[in-house]
């Protein structure tokens, strides 16, 4: 498994838990709000879990961008310095 695959799997796990879905239900590009009825509180919860797991700080302004698993990965990679 590449590093990107590992990160994606970990992030998928976090998103699925917060949105109360099975990990395989979370598609890479599905919009959290439109597809899974997420709200701003769930978004903050996802952000908080990611910050705790990877010990990284992500500005709250990035929340608007973090609307799909793929987008979340891009934002986290940028702030955590992942070379995925």
């Amino acid at each position, binding site marked *: 498994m590449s590093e990107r695959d590992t990160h994606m799997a970990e992030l998928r796990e976090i998103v699925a*838990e917060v949105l109360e879905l099975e990990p395989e239900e979370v598609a890479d590009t599905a919009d959290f709000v439109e597809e899974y009825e997420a709200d701003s*509180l769930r978004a*903050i*919860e996802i*952000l*908080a879990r990611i*910050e*705790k797991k990877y010990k990284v700080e992500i500005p*709250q302004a990035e929340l608007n961008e973090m609307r799909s698993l793929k987008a979340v990965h891009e934002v986290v990679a940028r702030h955590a310095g992942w070379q995925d």
Partner: protein
Amino acid sequence: MRLEHGELRTLLPHRYPMLLLDRVDSVEPGVSLEAVKAVTGCEPCYSGIAEGQAPDRYAYPASLLIESFGQGAAVLWLLSRGPGTTGLPMFTAARDCVLLRQVYPGDVIRHRVRLEQVVHGAAFAAGSSWVGTDQVAEFGSMMAVVRPADAIAERKR
């Protein structure tokens, strides 16, 4: 640090019948807190119960137990904030909470609360509740967000 009931009332906006904490026995701001809630037969949740019900009809409602723990978490968060910070915590999510045994009138619940994370105007707490040496609940993650006090409710004078 110990907080008597009157001091809790200066911190929490909750009042009868929803102030579900009696005392804080110890608190280390930013880290942990131990709080006490005594359950009595006088609680409003027991009024209006017909005579002759099964004993478990008097089990303390899980929703109130969780709220009581959450109020402990709120006190911990409020005491952990920097001076001049305003706003009230609003309970928004509970995850991985397990109720292990029923609580009945006469039981004194002790909540052991840990503050896990404070970030982006949200706080996450975890911990457990005990009656004597019996654990009655485990709280994996309790989330609250801060909201302006005047946006929640105007306090009655």
